[in-house]
Every structure is written in structure tokens, then in C-alpha cells.
């Protein structure tokens, strides 16, 4: 198949970028989207042009490194996928495809499609952990957690930190990312001791990093490759209110 690509090219955060046109022939419909990008880059290099810089690593949807807007949607048109799992069979022969970086004030562009998502690490640093140093913890089976609670905690913990939620949200809110960690740790007995402190610190760091407020449109859940539910945001709000009310 043949595709027309309109790809965002930008030298660095301080330089203006623009969409550039590329034509690509002989695209196999079993190719992943990123393999199509590899093919384009091979051709650009051989022509003496700079290849398109894009983030990618595991190419199996779990590391959360890849992230780009494909035809205006985070990770492209198929729900529940990362860009690396998207295959060219989802596009029509002759299709025009727009490829742009995740856009948010808190995610500055480094080059082309590569963005800086270190704000996510700083949100976790603010409190996204259980204070349990390496040592001699209690025997694992002394902490009983029902099947349902463990599964529900897992659902929240499955977030891969890709940033699709932020890129999708019209307010560039990191509420889904932040709340998923808050909910994961608040749901289980090991984490609930610090829940109040955690939610206050993480929410305030989220705001400091320049993410917007939750827009309540639930677009983040729709675009999330792991299907993280917006109920996590409800849980975060509840934990936040509770923590503020019970604060000394």
C-alpha cells in the first residue's frame, strides 16, 4: 500500500515546527506503525536527510515510551493500543496520515515527535510509593487482600505512563495518570496508611508541573491504551477531600 504522511518536524523546544510531507510506497499492511516509520527513516537517511526522531522502545505496548498523535488521536485510531501495536492494516491504501507529538505545556517537544515527560516522574516522586525500605518485611501472607481488591488495585496499577491521557485532554490534565497511582496504593492495606499525605502531595505537584484541571470529558479513558478507568479520578477526588477534611 501507499501512504501520504504529514509529519511534525521541529528542531528543538525553542524553534518553531511545521508539518512536512512525505510519500511512502510499498508499505506492507502487516507492518506496525513504527515499522512504517522505520522504513521512512531508512529512506530519509539514504537521501541524506535527517530521520524523524520519535520515542519508542519495547514495541509491545508495555514500556509506555512511544506516544504520538496519529490523525489527531493519541496512539492512533484503534482503542486500547499504543502506537507500536498499531498496524498499517488499519489504514486505507492511499491514506493521508497526520503524525504529531503529544502536545501539552508540561510536555515540551525535544525534537520532532520526542517530548519531555519527566513531569510524570516528579509526580511519582512527590508520593507515589509506599514507604517500605528494603529489609525484613512481614511474611507476605500475613497481609490478606481479597481477590477482588487485588484485581481492582491491579487495574489501577496497570498504567504505563505514556501520557496519552494528557495529550488527549483539552485541559492537558494529568488527572488520570496521577489518580491511577493514588488509587492503586489507597486500595490496598499496605498503602492506605499514607493515603492522605500521598494524595495531597501528588495533587499539588501535578498542579505545579503545569497540568490543567480535569475536564470531566472522560476522553482520557477512551484513549488510554491500558483502559484505566476515570473512576480512579473519582477515587482521587474522594481521597483528596477526605484528606483535607481530616487534616489537623
Amino acid at each position, binding site marked *: 500500500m501507499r501512504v501520504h504522511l504529514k509529519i511534525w518536524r521541529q528542531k528543538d523546544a525553542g524553534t518553531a515546527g511545521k508539518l512536512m510531507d512525505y510519500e511512502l510506497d510499498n508499505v*506492507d499492511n*502487516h*507492518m*506496525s506503525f*513504527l*515499522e512504517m516509520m*522505520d522504513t521512512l527513516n*531508512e529512506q*530519509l*537517511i*539514504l537521501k*541524506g536527510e*535527517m*530521520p524523524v*526522531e520519535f*520515542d519508542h*522502545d*519495547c*514495541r*509491545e*505496548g*508495555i*514500556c*509506555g*515510551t512511544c506516544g504520538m498523535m496519529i490523525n489527531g488521536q493519541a496512539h492512533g485510531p484503534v482503542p*486500547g493500543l499504543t502506537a507500536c501495536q498499531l498496524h498499517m*492494516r488499519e489504514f486505507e491504501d492511499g491514506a493521508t496520515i497526520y503524525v504529531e507529538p503529544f502536545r501539552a505545556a508540561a510536555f515540551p517537544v*525535544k525534537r520532532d515527535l520526542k517530548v519531555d*515527560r*519527566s513531569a510524570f*516522574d516528579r509526580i*511519582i*516522586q*512527590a508520593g*507515589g*510509593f*509506599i514507604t*517500605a*525500605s*528494603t*529489609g*525484613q*518485611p*512481614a511474611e*507476605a*501472607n500475613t497481609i490478606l*487482600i*481479597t*481477590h477482588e481488591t*487485588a484485581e481492582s*488495585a*491491579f487495574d489501577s*496499577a*496497570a498504567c*504505563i505512563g505514556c501520557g496519552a491521557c494528557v495529550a488527549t485532554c483539552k485541559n492537558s490534565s494529568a488527572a488520570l495518570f496521577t489518580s491511577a497511582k493514588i488509587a*492503586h*496504593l489507597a486500595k*490496598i492495606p*499496605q*498503602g492506605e496508611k499514607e493515603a492522605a499525605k500521598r494524595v495531597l502531595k501528588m495533587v499539588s505537584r501535578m498542579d505545579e508541573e503545569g497540568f490543567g484541571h480535569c475536564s470531566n470529558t472522560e476522553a482520557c479513558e477512551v484513549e488510554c491504551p491500558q483502559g484505566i478507568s476515570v473512576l480512579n479520578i473519582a477515587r482521587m477526588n474522594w481521597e483528596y477531600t477526605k484528606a483535607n477534611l481530616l487534616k489537623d
Partner: protein
Amino acid sequence: MELDAKIPEGPLEKKWSNYKAQAKLVNPANRKKLPVIVVGTGLAGSSAAASLAEQGYPVYSFCFQDSARRAHSVAAQGGVNAAKNYQNDGDSVYRMFYDTLKGGDFRAREANVYRLAECSLNLIDQAVAQGVPFAREYGGYLSNRSFGGVQVSRTFYARGQTGQQLLLGAYQALMRQVAAGKVDLYSRHEMLDLVVIDGKAKGIIARNLDTGAIERFAAEAVVIATGGFGKIYYLSTLAMGCNGSAIWRAHKRGALMACPSWTQIHPTCLPQAGDYQSKLTLMSESLRNDGRIWVPKLANEERQANDIPEEERDYYLERRYPSFGNLAPRDISSRAAKERIDAGFGVGAQRNAVYLDFSKAIQEQGKDKVKEKYGNLFSMYKKITADDAYTAPMKISPAAHFSMGGLWVDYELMTTIPGLFAIGEANFGDHGANRLGANSLLQACVDGYFILPYTLANYLSGELKKERLTIHHPQFELVEKEVTGQLERLCQINGTKTTDYFHKQLGKLLYDQCGLSRSEAGLKAAIKGIQVLREEFYKDLIVPGTQGEINAELEKAGRVADYLEIAELMCNDALSRKESCGAHFREEYQTAEGEALRDDENYCYVSAWEWKGENTAPVLHPEPLVFEFIKLSVRSYS
């Protein structure tokens, strides 16, 4: 060079506690004077960096990814082993030790493997304390499943994302230390060389991948936790960025490499579909608990899987290994698949796959139960292939996966360069010639959380009174010049072929001659082929852009330059070992039934290799493996 593994005295079950009782400590007030560099933030690196920082050592932590959470441990699916015996099915530390040693075809140290099994108990406790959401029974107790190569259920799991959840636990512990100011985190930094001063590891040179700047870091010890180098085969289950550069640079600075050719080829991966393919996705081994592997009895079969009647199917693992069946260890399963594929019984468009069939499990347990256990794997399969594994069997194929080989380390996880430690997949250690499923997450965690914090202190206590060296030492200057020289060299070749071209050529050559089966003639031809390819690389490579900027192609070129050297050592390693053991199958050494023929008389040793310079043959230093507590046996799964 005499290799001293420094195995502690005493009975097997007392060795580690004896070591801990006698190891030297560093006073808490002195720890802050002893900075440590940890390269890599996977399970081994994150757990080590967090644990050392908790103890009070200043830690510099490095990863090439844009966040520590993305290291490739994240992709491990199936689980982590521990000898908890929660299932009351006869498990014990000793049994786990024996299974692991046997699984590795008796090519690992008894003392190391016993320690791994012993520390497995604590690891589960540690992970639960961190909030890792392991699978639970309805009453709240932890759940287990079984994995290849064993007859007990000792695998703990978090759906099909156990690696992700364990890594997030370690990552969060690391982030906590970053927030406390005890860890300086350098993401998007790649270690490009090791600085050795007066025979000791004292620092690294790293490249800031966002700016291209070359930076120097000095410390009192360097820990390499950069994982495996299976990406050398180009097509593998590894992430695109996984590489062997840190261990290779350490090797060229004097650290010996052990058994580099021992690569695990994983039996359950998705087959290659075309030349453009960049990786082969792994489907968790846990699928073999309920999936049955088969090929048609008729060669070049044209019918669809569901149209082939039961009596015309060859369940070759059940046939050849009746007592383990579909749960035979990975090396054996992969080789059996290759045997069938090579004989013309392969399935799929490229005839390069075998079937993994769930119809019996669905019939017996119901679709819902199968979905609960493997739902995410089935949906991953559908995402990639567009096929529904609930209605027709999966097509799977072997792919390069795990490096049993790596930097040679002693019982303290220290390489032959004092002050340089290697942990996790980066070292050669506990897995021998074949790793059992769910033991890699375990080893990475145990090295980082429970072993290194003791053994590093034992080393650092001796460094306390020595002079602190800084990055202004002339050796830093020298190594930095060599690093920038190599980058400049790559940028200025201006040839006509891309890095990926060379990587694909190398990968194919290596997979054919130094993959699932090896022969003297093949390996000798491969060595010549690699040398020719390396020459061509330095004449005809094209790298766009400069070293002073973001440049993904330059990153790749540097890694492939190292792969082109590692590959040659792998072939030399495979050539020198005239026996078959575990993942190392030499065609000349097999039984009449086609099983591996081990030679304990002549090859019961670890092959440790010394770098002697470019175009000079490496020197082999065998470390004999002494078995005091168990008797070597023929590894049989039939």
C-alpha cells in the same frame, strides 16, 4: 589469571548467612562519603540503587530511557518464582535450588544458585510490602501457578504483567530516594565507557542523549545493571534500545566475559512476518500451562488448523517428553520446534511457526476461565496478528530472549575489576546454560535488594581511607577523548548503508550459526563473516547528523559497533565448548535421539574470556565448577 569465585566455607544452607555474618560493614556516618554509580534502572538497577540509597550511600543512577520506569524488565509477563511452598506441593528451598541447577544443565555454581532460592522467600514479602498487586485467592492469600521445567507451583504473578508491577515497585522505591535527595537520577544518559584507575573502577563516561554532551562521573564503585544483549540477533523479544555496550566497554577495560554464547531462545514468540520486522513479541510461557503445542503430521500441510483432525496432529512435546509435556524447559521446547520446522512441518504463511492450541482448555475449563488467566495475552495476540486465539490455535515460533552469559562475577557479584559489580541479566551467574521461566525477575531483584547491599559494603569498607579521586584525574580525560573519538569516527564514515542494515545482517548470521544449534564449520564461517561485516561497517556506514545533538541513529550505530565485536566472542565461546549443554547445542555432540550430550569430564567449567585487543584472539580462563552437594545427572525430561 586464577579466577577465585570466593565461595564461603560451610554447608550449602549456611554459606550465605556465614558470608553475611563475616562481611565488613561501613559505619552509617561514613557511607555518605562513598558514592556509587548504578547503570541501568531495570529491576536489578532500581532495586540496587534504592536499597543502597536507603542505607545512606550517595547514588548516581543512569538509564538511557526517558524514565527509569521504562527499562525492559517492564515487559516480563509470566511471573517470579519463590520457594514459599504455599501450595503444599512439595516445594522447598532445596528443590528450587535443584530445579534451577538442573534447568541450567549443571553449569552454574551450587552456592550461588542455593542463595538465589533462599532469598526468593524474602523477595515476595518485600514486593508485597511495596504494594505489588500479585494475584490472590478469594480468601486473600497469594495465588501461584506453575512454569516450565518444574513440577510444583511456585510462580507468583500479577496477570500477564508481573515484570511491570515488580519494576514499578522498585521504581517507586527509587523515586522515593530521588525525592529524598539521596539518588541523583540521570535518565536519557548512556554509559559509553568505564574509567579504571590503579586497577579499580572509579567512574564512567556517559553521553547525555538529549544534548549529545559527554559527561564524567566519579564514584567509589560502579554497578552495571544494564540487562542482556539478546538484541544482538536484531530480531528478538528485547526492546529496541537494549544493548551490550556497557558490559562490552567494561570487558575491554579488563572485566572478563563469561559464557557469552549462552543465549536463551524463547519457544513462545510470534513468528516473523516480513523483512521490515523490528522485533518478535513474546507470549508468556505461562500459556504452556493450558496450551498444547503441535504441528501437522503431514509435511507442507495446506489445511487450516481447525480442519486438521486430531489423529493427524503431532503433539511433539507430549510425545518426546511425556512427564513434562508442554512444560518442558525453554531450550528443549525451542529446539524441538526448530527440529519440526526445519523438517518441513512448520505452519503459517512463512512455514516458520508451530501451533499453540487452547481448544482443549476451553472445552474443559470454559472460555471465561481461560480468558481470566490469559485474557491480556490473547488480546495482545489479536492486536498484533488480527487473529482470534479463542477460535483457532496461536502460531508461535522461537526467538532470542535472554542472555545467560554476561560479565563474569564472583560470589560477591564483583567482576575481575575491583570495584566493578555486575547484577541481574548483565552478569553470568545463577542460570547456567539455560534459565528457567520466572527466574530472571527473581535474580534481578535478589541481586539488587538482598545481595549487592552486603557485598558492596564489604568492598567499600576497604576504600574508606583511600584518597577520593575526582573527574579531573587524567584517566577521565583520556577515556573521554577515546569516547568522543569513536563517536566522531562513526559520524564521519559517510558511506551508503544504514546501521539497521548491518544489524540485520549480523543478526541473521548469528541466529543461523550461533543460535539454536551450532557446528564447528558454521561457527568458523560465522567468525569470518562477522570480521568482513565489521570491516564493511567502518567503511560504508552512514550516520546522519552530529554527535552534539539528539541523534537516535548515532546511538544505534554505537551499539551495533559493539555488537559486531561481541558477536565474534560469542562464536569463539561456542566454538571452544565441544559439548552440548542447555541452550548451547553443538550438532556434533548429541545422542542418537537428538538430545544434548554433555561432557562433564572436560567441560564442567565456566568459560571466562579476556580481551586482548582488536584482531587478537581472546584468552580463555576456565573456572572449574565443583559440585560438593549434588550429583551431576543427565538432564532428562522424558
